[in-house]
């Protein structure tokens, strides 16, 4: 087998090992532990009160906003990796070096403008609805 | 009409008024031990000394009548010093055993000591010892050490009870109160001697050691043991009546009450109807009312008879009559009640029912003509329903027999008896100390009965029962009945 594929075989072994470990402890627990259940035990934990509402309902939109920003910024980060790996080689040549430098400044500038826009829109503020709570210091 | 000045304030009084009475009217406090507004004046404690412009020496304000132009001073340094000296003298041989004295907390000597004397004893020798816990009669215990010889008790026996059973023997610091040899303090007003006693010398055996005075709270209510309707105060601690004491009502009982009335609360400590019963089986209140409401319209077709009790309040009577007539318009009503008993010329009246007068007025108002109790007993086999309120009926045996012959027999009572044994439906009702409402006494005085203790369990006022029944029947009582109170 070629040496190129050997790491992936090792990786597959690691994954198999990890899956084995994880499932083994969970299954072993299921075999060893007792099973006694009742209605009160089966209810969700809410400090002793009955839950008023189901957790599977529409959630605050801020979590979706964060998810969208993650996708946007993480994709851009992925674009940066090839640049970073090749940057020093590119710097060796004066022409490509200058291009690489200018290109990354422009790229980060675009990223910064995007961040500035999102920031300015208040999308990064976690507590943005309503006025700030009144502070009564007695 | 002499006009005089007390501490710079003018007052005009009828001739013969004592200075202390005039001061009381002005709200000026003059300390006193032997003076009692309901008793003749003795003037022996010297606590009520005041200065006047008519005499070089301080005079006893309980004795001196008011005169035109009198100028009285009650708070000069000389008077304060005089009071202090009198108190020190009174306390010379007093045992100061307040922790074990039942009067502590309501003791005039204790209060005045803190107000005027407030010093440690300067008496360097052993105090005189006298009899302690001496039983004077069935109700009264006497402690000679604590006695200050004010003689209020002797005057109560003589002037109020017309039974001169107490006497002061010996003289000076040896003086004490006693009964004549071979007799005891046993007249029907003997407990009043403990009321008037300013210290803890005379205490009632009923309340002795039972509870401390400061732990109780007093509820102003009315005695139900006869149609006099004496004003009483029920002292309550931990939702239990601890004692009954008379309260001042110039229209009815002055300052007094009879021993029988004051011990009457013990009657309701045992033998109470504890729970709703249907055919002898305990059930809950709501179910009892529901079953009565279901059975009553059918029974009304044959006829409904109701025996009311002159112990019920006016509000109870109104609610009961209104509720029952809403389902049985042709119902007949009779008034039962306890049998007449002994009477005396002081307070006790022959009619032993507190509200016969008020009940008659309510029935007249509602255009009910009560029939005789015997008539209902005679009709019993033909009746559809017989409802009896209260257990204190003179003809209880006859009524019990009638209840046994009626298909729907209902008794609402506080105490068990032949009636509750005979009836199919039994509902517990409130005692006079658990109810709230109005009584009218024999003289026509309208008085308020107040709830002193909260009733336990399913115990309900008659009015509350009637109101709940009316609700069940779909014909709720008008608003005033609901306002008359009862258990929620």
């Amino acid at each position, binding site marked *: *087998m070629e040496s190129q594929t*050997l790491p*992936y*075989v*090792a*990786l597959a*072994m*690691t*994954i198999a*090992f*990890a899956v084995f*470990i*994880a499932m083994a*402890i*969970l299954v*072993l*627990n*299921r075999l060893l*532990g*007792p*099973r*006694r*259940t009742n*209605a009160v*035990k*089966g*209810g*969700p*934990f*809410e400090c002793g009160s009955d*839950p008023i509402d189901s*957790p599977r309902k529409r*959630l*605050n939109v801020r*979590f979706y906003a*964060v*998810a969208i920003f*993650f996708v946007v*910024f*993480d994709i851009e*980060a992925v674009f*940066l*990796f090839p640049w*970073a*790996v*090749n*940057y*020093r080689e590119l*710097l060796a040549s004066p022409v490509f*070096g200058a291009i*690489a*430098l200018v290109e*990354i*400044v422009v790229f*980060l500038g675009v990223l910064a403008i995007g*961040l500035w826009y999102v*920031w300015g829109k208040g999308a*990064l*503020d*976690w507590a943005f609805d309503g006025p700030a709570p009144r502070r009564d210091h007695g | 009409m002499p006009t005089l000045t007390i501490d710079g304030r003018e007052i005009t009084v009828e001739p013969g008024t004592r200075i202390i009475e005039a001061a009381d009217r002005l709200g000026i406090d003059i300390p006193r031990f032997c003076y009692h507004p309901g008793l003749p004046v003795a003037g022996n404690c010297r606590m009520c000394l005041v200065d006047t412009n008519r005499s070089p020496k301080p005079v006893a304000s309980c004795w001196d009548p008011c005169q035109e132009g009198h100028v009285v001073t009650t708070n000069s340094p000389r008077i304060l010093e005089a009071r202090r000296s009198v108190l020190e003298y009174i306390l010379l041989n007093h045992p100061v055993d307040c922790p074990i004295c039942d009067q502590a907390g309501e003791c005039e000597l204790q209060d005045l000591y803190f107000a005027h004397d407030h010093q440690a004893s300067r008496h360097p020798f052993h105090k005189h010892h006298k009899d302690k816990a001496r039983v004077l009669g069935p109700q009264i215990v006497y402690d000679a050490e604590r006695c200050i010889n004010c003689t209020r008790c002797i005057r109560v026996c003589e002037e109020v009870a017309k039974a001169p059973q107490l006497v002061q023997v010996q003289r000076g610091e040896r003086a004490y109160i006693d009964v004549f040899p071979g007799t005891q303090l046993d007249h029907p007003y003997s407990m009043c001697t403990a009321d008037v006693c300013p210290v803890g010398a005379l205490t009632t055996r009923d309340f002795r050691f039972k509870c401390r005075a400061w732990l109780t709270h007093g509820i102003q209510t009315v005695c139900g043991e006869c149609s006099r309707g004496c004003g009483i105060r029920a002292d309550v601690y931990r939702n239990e009546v601890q004692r009954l004491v008379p309260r001042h009502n110039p229209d009815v009982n002055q300052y007094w009450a009879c021993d029988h009335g004051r011990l009457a609360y013990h009657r309701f400590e045992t033998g109470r109807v504890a729970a709703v019963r249907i055919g002898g089986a305990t059930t809950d209140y709501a179910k009892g009312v529901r079953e009565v409401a279901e059975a009553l319209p059918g029974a009304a077709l044959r006829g409904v008879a109701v025996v009311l009790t002159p112990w019920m309040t006016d509000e109870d009577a109104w609610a009961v009559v209104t509720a029952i007539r809403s389902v049985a318009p042709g119902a007949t009503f009779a008034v039962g009640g306890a049998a007449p008993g002994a009477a005396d010329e002081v307070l006790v009246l022959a009619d032993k029912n507190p509200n016969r007068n008020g009940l008659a007025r309510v029935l007249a108002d509602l255009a009910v003509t009560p029939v005789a109790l015997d008539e209902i007993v005679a009709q019993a086999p033909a009746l559809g329903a017989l409802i009896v309120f209260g257990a204190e009926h003179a003809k209880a045996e006859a009524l019990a027999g009638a209840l046994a012959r009626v298909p729907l027999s209902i008794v609402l009572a506080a105490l068990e008896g032949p009636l509750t044994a005979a009836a199919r439906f039994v509902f517990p009702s409130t005692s006079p100390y658990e109810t709230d409402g109005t009584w009218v006494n024999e003289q026509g005085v309208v008085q308020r009965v107040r709830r002193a203790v909260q009733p336990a369990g399913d115990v309900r006022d008659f009015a509350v029962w009637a109101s709940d029944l009316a609700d069940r029947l779909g014909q709720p009582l008008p608003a005033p009945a609901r306002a008359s109170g009862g258990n929620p």
Partner: protein
Amino acid sequence: MTLTFVLLTLAKIVGFILVFCVILAAILTWVERKMSSIIQDRIGPNRAEILGIRAFGLFHPIADMIKSFTKEDFVPAGANRIMFFLAPAFALIPTLVVFAVVPFGPGDLVIANLDSGMLFVFAIMGFGIYGVTLGGWASASNFAMLGALRGAAQMVSYEVSMGLNVVGIFAVFGTVSLTQIVGAQGHLLWGWLPMWGIVVQPLGFVLFLVAAMAENKRAPFDLPEGESEIIGYFVEYSAMGFATFMLSEFIEIVVIACIAATLFFGGWQIPWLDPTGTAGGWITVAQVAFFAFKVLFLCWFQMLIRWTVPRFRYDQVMSLGWKVLLPLSLANILVTAVVLALVA
């Protein structure tokens, strides 16, 4: 592929992942309790004993393990049973797999020498979010759901910063392979200073450590757990399900320590000694031991931070990630780019 390779790989897996990392994580649960107690002037766990030997409470992880195995693996009535069962595994598996690419010694002492190295690490660590989210969602409990949402939002937020602030390291060393990064750190700057990541990327290290700890949901960023308020995404878990979540959290401490040691502390490199890793013999053993020492130190350092800093508020956590770390990461890349251009 030879049998030798398989056996060798198996030995490395068992030796590095199972013996070093998992056992270290188990001991870290004891270290965490013992360290917090010592910092707070207490004695801490010391009661578990075997034949009268207490060994400073070192048997507590064993007692915990026995207890976790023999307790009821309870499933709430409203839960999605399959997902509820699998969620702890989803949390544990990625943390174990990450070790495959970490070089714990020179030469062949790495389980899978991938060229993609650090990219693989990011990809696998991203999987950790699934365990949290699924565990919280499958529990059908409001607290668990809230914890899961907080966890997911927090982890993706810091994933961005973490990805960006290692770009500087990549630019300096010109590779994403962890083996090559470690090898490159054997160089000396100006002839005497080891070119460790922390030397060439000091800001990058601080940002990386903060972002990594936030992604591990450890105090001061333990909002998804928040044991005093919502208990967190594993509120409905008991026995080994719960223990697996905790174990994966402690293994992730080791992961962070390994990655930080590799990227910023020269991995197995001992300064001025055998930078190529070809010496063999006792020097290799010393290099492996030095790597282990760096990992242990970084684990200890993370714990010290955890017992020093109080918990943030959730909006503070989010604004720290987006408004502070992200701009600083971008600035770090820019500065790195400019400096590298000037040096070249």
